[in-house]
């Protein structure tokens, strides 16, 4: 599998404060990668660089030609960022304006569970519904890659779980690779095939943890708990003064199954 999107040796500074140092990551087709780190570690900045919204950095951004046209990378932000003056359907088809493909919009609204709400205005939607519309809008351009910037952090826990399942579902159905930025350990491991941990000042990639579990996954699965523990340890260590050099990055050895609901790939 060749990478669809590759970030190479990214260095980024705001004014004189170095935020990211020598961060590299790649995203292959159909893969879900979680980017985990404490707040302010620059993980959102990294995503913005990948989305093309931040051009002021050092390093390389390699894109598959399929991703270079407008809408080739679907982005969902922390907030829905819907245009309040457009209806739900117009928001979903925003990329094409008036020439939007109505039946595709309809299909996407059905996919995110908002069939028949196309004529509603954003002000009539709940936070979770608005985020569903944002997900549909991101999928409208038939992207190969979805870039998600803490997309579920502003909704309640129950809605969050439903939205997480929705995204995994849609990503699989439309064969979209996902780069998910989050500070939520549960979310990162439940959704991702690989979790990258960002930490330290300036931030580097501290570790990569593989999540060798088939889908659909069980949130209660003991293996997830174990991985969460590993990540937590890593996050605490990376705050320490010594820091951890990037060569400590390693894949987690396959775990023993402690719960028969979880199956290794």
């Amino acid at each position, binding site marked *: 599998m060749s990478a669809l999107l590759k970030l190479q040796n990214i260095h980024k500074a705001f004014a004189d404060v170095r935020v990211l140092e020598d961060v590299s990551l790649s995203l292959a087709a159909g893969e879900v990668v979680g980017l985990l780190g404490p707040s302010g570690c620059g993980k959102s900045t990294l995503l913005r660089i990948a989305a093309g*919204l931040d051009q002021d950095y050092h390093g390389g951004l390699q894109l598959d030609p399929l991703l270079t046209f*407008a809408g080739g990378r679907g982005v969902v932000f922390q907030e829905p960022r819907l245009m309040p*003056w457009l209806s739900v359907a117009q928001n979903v088809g925003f990329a094409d304006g008036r020439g939007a493909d109505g039946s595709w919009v309809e299909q996407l609204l059905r996919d995110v569970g908002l069939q028949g709400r196309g004529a509603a205005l*954003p*002000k009539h939607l709940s936070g979770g519904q608005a985020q569903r519309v944002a997900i549909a809008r991101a999928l409208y351009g038939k992207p190969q890659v979805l870039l998600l910037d803490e997309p579920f952090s502003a909704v309640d826990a129950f809605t969050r779980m439903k939205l997480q399942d929705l995204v995994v579902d849609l990503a699989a159905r439309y064969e979209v690779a996902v780069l998910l930025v989050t500070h939520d350990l549960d979310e990162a491991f439940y959704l991702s095939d690989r979790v990258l941990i960002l930490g330290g000042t300036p931030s580097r990639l501290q570790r990569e943890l593989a999540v060798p579990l088939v889908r659909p996954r069980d949130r209660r699965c003991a293996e997830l708990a174990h991985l969460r523990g590993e990540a937590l340890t890593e996050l605490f260590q990376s705050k320490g003064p010594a820091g951890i050099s990037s060569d400590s990055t390693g894949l987690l050895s396959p775990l023993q199954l402690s719960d028969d609901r979880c199956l290794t790939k």
Partner: protein
Amino acid sequence: MSALNLVIVRWAERLPGWRPMLTDLRGWVVPLLLLALLETFVRSGVLPAHQMPAPSQVAQTLYGLAQSGELWRHLSASLARVSAGFTIGAVLALVIGTWVGLSRRAEAYLEPTFQALRAIPSLAWVPLLLLWLGIDETPKIVLIALGAFFPVYLALLAGIRNIDRKLVEVGRLYGLSPLALVRRILLPAALPNLFTGLRGALSLSWMFLVAAELIAATRGLGYLLSDGRETSRPDLVIAAILLLALLGKLSDSLLKAWETRALRWRDSYQGGEDGA
């Protein structure tokens, strides 16, 4: 007042179909009372009729004007001037305001000049406009356009500067051209401010219309005002004032109805504690 309010609310409850109309009637109570009071005072001789004509007298004057066709002549002249001036001023403000709103460079070059021009009371332009453009229609329309320009320009600029950066970013994500960005994100997002500016500009347009017509005109409501003063006919002056009030209110209501329609999407505080 509260007793009257109660009566109206009771009637509104009994006749649910009439409810919106009846509650709207509340605004008529004060002016009607004042008119009745005035009529009584003038008829009973408390107020001298040659200075303060009775409302019925003013109504008669208006009827006379309408009968002779004079009314329409004055109204159409004033309406034409206001619509031309307002449209020209607002369109120019729309174009220049968007340009300055978008470009920091344009702002650096143009803003100080506009601020200085704005500081000149617009009526100070009148003599100059008369010198340059004669006493034709042109100076009147230019003056009104000048008055309409600044409210729209300032409101639009403030509106564009207040737009959520996050929405603009969505536009960048979809690779919108600058023109598409203006049309699809900036102008719609600045629309609430723009309407405030347009309504302010419209009321200023009427004000400058009167100023222009008072000074040099042979037709129009402003002319009617000065004619009434010169021929010592307060009924004519008051009739013209009423017509101005009516037109001003009517044009503002039209704009407001358009605003309400265009801004249906807005999710903002609409004022509380009404109920009735």
